[in-house]
Structures are given as C-alpha cells and as structure tokens.
C-alpha cells in the first residue's frame, strides 16, 4: 500500500514540475531543486518525462496516429475512419472548441470492442461491447437512443438543453451527471448513477411515475412492472463499470452468471453442463476479452477441468 502511494506521490510532484517547466524558465534555485529531485531516484526522472509528454501540444502527435492504428484496423473502424479523420483534421486547424468532437449519428461497437465518443457539448459516451447508440442533438435537446447494449454517459451540465437517454420504453433524463444504461434483450433496463441525479421515466405510459435517483443508486425497469430503485455500494458501482477498462468484475456471482456475462464480450462461449458447478460463486477481476484465461483461473481454484473446442470452452468436473 505504501509502495503505491509513493509512486502516486512521485507522479504528483512530477506533474507539478512539468507544469512549472512548461510555464516559464525556471529560476536558478528552482532549477537546482528540480535537478536534486530528479537525481534522487531514477523513477523521478521517468515520471517527469511522462508528465512532460502529457503536456506536449497534441497536434504534432497525430503524425504517428496512422502508425498506431493502421495494423489494427477493423471493418467498423474503416467505416468510422472518415469521421475520426475529419475530427482529427479539424482538431489541428480549428479555433478552440469547435467541431473537434463526434457529431450526431449512429455509433456501434462489435463484440469485444469499447469505444469512447466525446460529443460537441463536452459530454462523453463510453460504449461497451456489442452496443449501439444514435446521437440526436438539436439546439433545444440532447437525445440519445441506446439501441442495444450498454453505455456510460458523462454529461456536461446544461439546464437549457436536457440530456435524455432512451432505452426501449425507458427514458433517463440527466441533470449534469455520470450514469450508465444497459439494455440487453430479455432483461430489465438497468440504470446506474455514478454522479449527480437522473430522472427515470416511461414516456409512453401516462400513469408511470417519474423516478428521481441519485448517486450510487441503481434503477431497474422490468418490462411489465414498475421501475424500482435501490442504493448500491460505491465498490459495486465500480465493479459494474469495470468494462470501461476492458475488464469484468465479479463479487459473489455464480459461475453460470459469469459465463453469461463473458459471452457479451467474446465469440467464445463458456459451457458448463453440470449445474452444481454453475452454482459455484466467484469473486475477482478479469480481462473481458479472455474467457479462456478466466475459465482456466476458475478451473485451478475449483479443481475443475477446462477443454477448448472451437468456439467453446467447457468447464467440467473431470
């Protein structure tokens, strides 16, 4: 624990020095203090280099982008490529805060992909695996349709232009906040609020009440029942949003539920024939795109057997 804090401390100091060096020429005293700090530990110079890199004007760093991207181009990436290239081009020449973001339109991720969409108003959508949104912005309103899957919305506050996410029959209206919405077939719509306040409603149902939910609350909207809200622990919120970093977190879920969760992120499916095994409970953090690695970790812990056949991982007793 102290180790981690100390590397964090190194980063904090390095960031301050990088900002200072970037601001103006250092005085002689400052230069000496910086030299002394840099000489004290090899990590200091490293963190300082890292911090300074993050202050380098960005336009220059686009020369390399093709290099980072091109070998990894996916089909969908090509389709989106035009938008991104246009965004990047305008980024280099445009005046501040104009046209450097994603615009209205339809955005989708394939299985195993995660996409971050910064929008023109300062809001950011993070799109989880196999998900699709339609962005409909007008001068009066900001409407987003979650067609399928799951997304996290970090919303820039603007009282004059409500931000509303439509997921099936459920509408989620944000009031300057961060929240996720999940729409999976045959499951209730799930809304999780990380910051601020949202209003969950069913616009087409005249008698359904508008539910106001706050930070660290989860709302569930089942197809044929009223919307319910319940408080959740902060740790639970973080677990539910682990996908943002390409990970899945479990905390006492059954192995069967975990296997189903993994199937959202990969074409390789985990098969568990023995219901007793499926009822085993697991806790841990895993790479979302690695169902085989997950299965092997599970097998070691529970003394089970793993067999990979084509697109299937079988977990069994022997």
């Amino acid at each position, binding site marked *: 624990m102290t*180790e981690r804090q100390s*590397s964090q401390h190194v980063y904090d100091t390095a960031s301050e020095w990088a900002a200072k060096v*970037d601001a103006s020429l250092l005085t002689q005293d400052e230069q000496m203090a910086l030299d002394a700090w840099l000489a004290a530990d090899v990590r200091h110079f490293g963190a300082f*280099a890292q911090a300074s890199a993050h202050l380098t004007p960005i*336009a220059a760093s686009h020369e390399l982008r093709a290099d980072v991207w091109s070998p990894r181009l996916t089909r969908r990436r090509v389709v989106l490529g035009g938008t991104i290239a246009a965004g990047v081009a305008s980024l280099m020449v445009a005046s501040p805060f104009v046209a450097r973001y994603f615009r209205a339109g339809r955005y989708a991720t394939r299985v195993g992909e*995660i996409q971050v969409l*910064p929008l023109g108003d300062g809001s950011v959508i993070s799109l989880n695996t196999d998900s699709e949104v339609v962005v409909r912005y007008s001068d009066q309103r900001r409407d987003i349709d979650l067609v399928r899957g799951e997304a996290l919305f970090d919303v820039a506050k603007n009282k004059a232009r409500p931000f509303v996410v439509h997921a099936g029959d459920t509408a989620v209206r944000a009031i300057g906040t961060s929240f996720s919405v999940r729409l999976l077939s045959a499951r209730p719509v799930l809304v999780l609020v990380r910051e601020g306040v949202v209003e969950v409603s069913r616009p087409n149902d005249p008698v359904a009440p508008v539910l106001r939910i706050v930070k660290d609350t989860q709302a569930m909207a089942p197809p044929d029942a009223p919307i319910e809200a319940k408080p959740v622990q902060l740790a639970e919120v973080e677990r539910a949003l682990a996908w943002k970093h390409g990970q899945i977190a479990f905390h006492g879920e059954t192995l069967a539920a975990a296997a189903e969760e993994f199937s959202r992120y990969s074409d390789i499916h985990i098969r568990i024939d023995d219901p007793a095994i499926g009822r085993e409970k697991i806790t841990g953090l895993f790479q979302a*795109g690695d169902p085989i690695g997950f299965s092997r970790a599970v097998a070691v812990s529970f003394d089970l057997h793993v067999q990979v056949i084509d697109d299937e991982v079988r977990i069994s007793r022997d």
Partner: protein
Amino acid sequence: MHRLPSERARWLAQNIVPNERGIRAWLSRRCYDLDVDDIIQEMYARIAALESVDKIRNPRQYATQVAFSILANQLRHARIVPMMPISDFDDNKLGAWDEVTPEERVGMRDDIHQIYAALSELPPRCRQAFLLRRVDGFSQKEVAARLGISEKTVEKYMAQGVRCLIRAFGRGGKRSSELSHGARGKVIRERRRQ
C-alpha cells in the same frame, strides 16, 4: 544531469504514451506483487535518457523490452516470489504482442479519445485551460490572458490535467485503482452455501 529536451517529450507522447496501457497490462499479467508504476516510471526514465531514439523502429516493442528488463531485474531481487516462475520470463516470449487482448488494443488506439474522456473528469475551467494549452498550443501565459486568470492558476491547472492523464493512460482512471489489485484474474473461492 537530467535534461528532457522538448523533442524527446514529444517523441514519448507520440510513441510511448499510446502504448503505455498495453505495456502495463502486459506487465500486470506477469507480476502480481510488484508495483507496475515503479517499472513504468523507470522505463520512461531509461528511454528519456537515451542519447538518441532515431534507431528505434518499433517503439512499442522497444519499450516492452525495456520494461521487461527492469521487471526481470526486480524479480531477481524480489523477496516475494511472484505467481509465475522466472523461467516464464523468457526473452523469447518477448514481443509476443499477439497476446494483447482486443480491449488493450482499443486502449492503445484511442488515445485522443481517451484524452477527452479523461479530461471530462476535470472541473470545466481547468479542462478548458488544459485543452487550450495541449490541443490549441497556446502558451500558459496566453491561456491565462485568454481566460482572465492568473498564470499561477494556469500552472496549477496544467499539473492537474497532467495528473489526470497519467492516471487515465496508466490505470485507466483512478476509479479502477482499487480494482487493479486483482487484475491478474485471481479467483477468490467463496464458501458454498448448503
């Protein structure tokens, strides 16, 4: 004497920063008890201190090799034995980037979007100041004049923005830091109910 010319900082921003998350993931799958931050910091230090980077054709692979040699050195001196035997840290397995998961690749690719997403956590004023410097290339002095705030405040905002990006490119945001302890995919066996 440690000097960091701005061309080197830019080279790092272009070549190493976009790969940092992937390298971290690669490392954290290999070292369970060692501090990845330490290794990454030392990796940056070594690359920043190189006389020349002209001959580095594949920065990602080069950085991974540097990180690996630091890791291997730490393992030899570590008192806590990692989950994986040292023999697994075979030089031949280096550069095996096929192991990189799609999520990690996405992480490497979308650094511009990551910058925006990460900065969305900052207070609006701070974000605006940071974007003016980083994206629009105004000097800190000019940013102060444009926003009508003191240069000292701008400097503070810059440090805040940098910290935010280090976090975002490193661990994918501070929010995941608690989670990252178990990132090797450790399974904790739960007691079974009767």
